[in-house]
């Protein structure tokens, strides 16, 4: 099967998107690219004419034997994942869904991955190619539908996490993988310190761990792989059975910890921060209580904090260990001006150069990532 059955929503809107970009280019009008509008809390507010990809939908190619799927950017993530599940396959990076409307384009442009990320890889690791509408409103193809491709620069992976500031993604091709044969989850009531030590030991063995998060006094573990090894490891690690629903709730920021509902609920006095840290970061040097109240996902490499600590204190603590901190609270909060960690000057220079070369008129989501571009 080379294509999935088309749905009534399938539609190629690339020509009208291109036309809008050509107009914007001609008049120098900034555009605010919108997919499902579910990740507004992630990034800086951007002013511009709304350009929605919602009409540009559908899976254009899927060959499960080839492990390759190509999909238009406005396609709901849920629709793509359902089509893959039908064939026993998945997006291995377990992308969060912040609502049924989350689109494939928004997923790639924000570049966020779920609990399996440290073991399976991130969004960009599974991007094989992309079609992009550049500033001239011409659709360009980078990468492709094959597993390996080093012809030209890797501009498709560059688009991942660029928040739509370098162009509009019209179609993305992913490598997909079979779903694991078996899956079991458990939790162990152990301290953060103990959890760190055990994870470090286990990490040097080929165990089928595919998620590990410490919160509220317990280490939560998911095992995925062949039935034999999952059963044997489940036995060995002990602990209590954990409901598998824990993982999507963690992935989509739906645990009680995150507060109910949208960004505004997270705002006020205890906004949400995401810390990205090296494995084996012993301590950030924040107050013990602050560290014990965080969620330590990705075996410690991604921590969630709800705190009124000021941005600079948090960021310098992260910088000391070669990590960084992202603000996901609401507008007007302590990090909303600069939700992403500021870049060192040389790096910033080359970000600006790249933006100026690929979007010379500054029409794509200006200021979404950093105020400087």
């Amino acid at each position, binding site marked *: 099967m080379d294509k999935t059955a088309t749905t009534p929503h399938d539609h190629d809107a690339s020509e009208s998107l291109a036309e809008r970009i050509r107009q914007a280019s001609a008049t120098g009008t900034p555009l605010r690219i919108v997919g499902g509008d579910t990740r507004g809390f992630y990034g800086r507010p951007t002013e511009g004419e709304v350009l929605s990809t919602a009409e540009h939908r559908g899976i254009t190619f899927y*060959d499960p034997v080839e492990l390759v799927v190509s999909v238009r950017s406005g396609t709901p993530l849920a629709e793509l994942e359902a089509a893959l599940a039908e064939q026993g396959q998945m997006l291995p990076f377990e992308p969060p869904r912040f609502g049924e409307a989350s689109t494939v384009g928004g997923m790639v442009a924000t570049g966020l991955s779920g609990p399996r990320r440290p073991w399976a890889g991130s969004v960009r690791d599974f991007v094989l190619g992309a079609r992009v509408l550049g500033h001239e409103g011409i659709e360009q193809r980078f990468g492709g539908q094959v*597993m390996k491709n080093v012809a030209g620069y890797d501009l498709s992976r560059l688009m991942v996490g660029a928040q739509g500031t370098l162009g509009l993604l019209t179609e993305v091709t992913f490598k997909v993988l079979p779903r694991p044969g078996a899956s079991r989850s458990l939790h162990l009531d152990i301290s953060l310190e103990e959890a760190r030590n055990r994870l470090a030991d286990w990490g040097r063995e080929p*165990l*089928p761990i595919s998620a590990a998060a410490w919160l509220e006094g317990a280490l939560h573990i998911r095992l995925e792989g062949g039935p*034999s090894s999952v059963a044997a490891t489940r036995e060995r690690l002990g602990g209590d059975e954990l409901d598998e629903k824990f993982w999507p709730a963690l992935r989509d920021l739906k645990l009680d910890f995150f507060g109910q509902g949208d960004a505004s609920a997270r705002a006020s006095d205890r906004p949400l921060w995401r810390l990205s840290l090296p494995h084996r970061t012993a301590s950030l040097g924040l107050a013990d209580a602050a560290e014990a109240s965080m969620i330590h996902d990705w075996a410690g*490499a991604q921590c969630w904090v709800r705190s009124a600590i000021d941005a600079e204190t948090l960021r310098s603590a992260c910088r000391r260990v*070669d990590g960084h901190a992202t603000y996901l609270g609401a507008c007007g909060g302590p990090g909303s001006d600069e939700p992403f960690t500021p870049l*060192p000057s040389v790096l910033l*220079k080359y970000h600006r150069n790249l933006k100026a070369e690929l979007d010379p008129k500054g029409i794509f989501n200006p200021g979404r990532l950093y105020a400087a571009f």
Partner: protein
Amino acid sequence: MNILYDERLDGAAPKLDKTAIRDSLAQDVPGLTLLHREEDLHPFECDGLSVYRTLPMLVALPETLAQVEQLLKTCHRLGVPVVTRGAGTGLSGGAMPLEHGVLLVLSRFSRILEIDPEARIARVEPGVRNLAISEAASPYGLYYAPDPSSQIACSIGGNVAENAGGVHCLKYGLTVHNVIKVEVLTIEGEHMTLGSDALDAPGFDLLALFNGSEGMLGVVTEITVKLLPKPETAKVLMASFDDIEKAGNAVGSIIAAGIIPGGLEMMDNLAIRAAEDFIGAGYPVEAAAILLCELDGVEADVDDDCETVRRVLEAAGATGIQQARDDAERALFWAGRKNAFPAVGRMSPDYYCMDGTIPRRELARVLKGISDLSEQYGLRVANVFHAGDGNMHPLILFDANTPGELDEAEALGGKILELCVEVGGTITGEHGVGREKINQMCAQFRPDELATFRAAKAAFDPTGLLNPGKNIPTPARCSEFRTIKSAAADPAKQG
């Protein structure tokens, strides 16, 4: 169309005064080893694509980062092109020197700076050999996954620049998936860090952009790679087929069964015989094709998977299936594959290695196409490939001393690459464009796409001093390429 630097098509070369540049570098960069006599330059005149040679103007062999930084600043100030070289094993002429440029050789940066078994990372200098990382990590039960066949010689800096792959990439990824951080010097001698010790970094994913950028955007001076725990066990099945198409279809069937092998490689009869003759790996020399399928992981799962794969291979029509009895035999099976290039090299004075990648479902069609082309050009072609990834390495056998044969081999190679593009594939899966595939880039990409590549390059190196002439063709070269192609197509239409 020749691939050597051609000022008419590739842009005017700067007019440089070799002595003056040598003096400036000697003055600005204390202690720098700078070769300039013709006999000293000869060892550097080519990379692994040895049919093309150019003598560099100067060869610099720095030993400290301060020297590299200062060299770049001086070259930038004087407008001198810089070509970076790792171990020089590249197969696409990426490190081919320029007559009017400095060759910056990083082979002296060969220290492993840190192995952190708890964080499972290694921090190394760019000249460290690929295999040396796994050797250093081995006492901790860890290894570095990407394993190009050239791993005893090639450098990790060169691996990053080419986004190198290996036989274990289908499951464990390419270089880009296994490098977490690089330190870079720009052509202006500025320092920047791309990526981080964490799993992501703020801003654009420049780390991804630099992987596979062929020394065109900056000089990579330090690399942090992730290490993986060695699998508990690895088993190899070798299946023989009397028909290459059946072997091709078996590859898809294994993956359709939900199995991602650690390695899945295929060789055709000519390659099998060459390897057997050279290594004595125990390959069936009568087979039309063999598949090597490695399954690794936890013992219990691997045993289950071996059973499944065995059934799939039988159903696909394998005429024989052999499982390596022990690690020694497993190593021997792989030795045959990993030495396939030099083995084929023994059968012919010269060989030319292609690197097209195609969707796996097109395998049979492309192999047929290659065999037709081989007949048409009267040159033998041996096929060795990373079947799981659809990455083919047709090896064209020729004799450069027979007048015209190099041209014929190149023309045949070009046709094979165009065939790969036609079926939805790419001209290079892991060896890079370099100088070798500069013309075929015009077949794979449209002018506006190439313009975007040039824009990305200009963001980092606006004056085009880093590795000029490589990777992205000029508009002039592509218009000549298209003119020649349409001229060639016309008489065919008439005939």
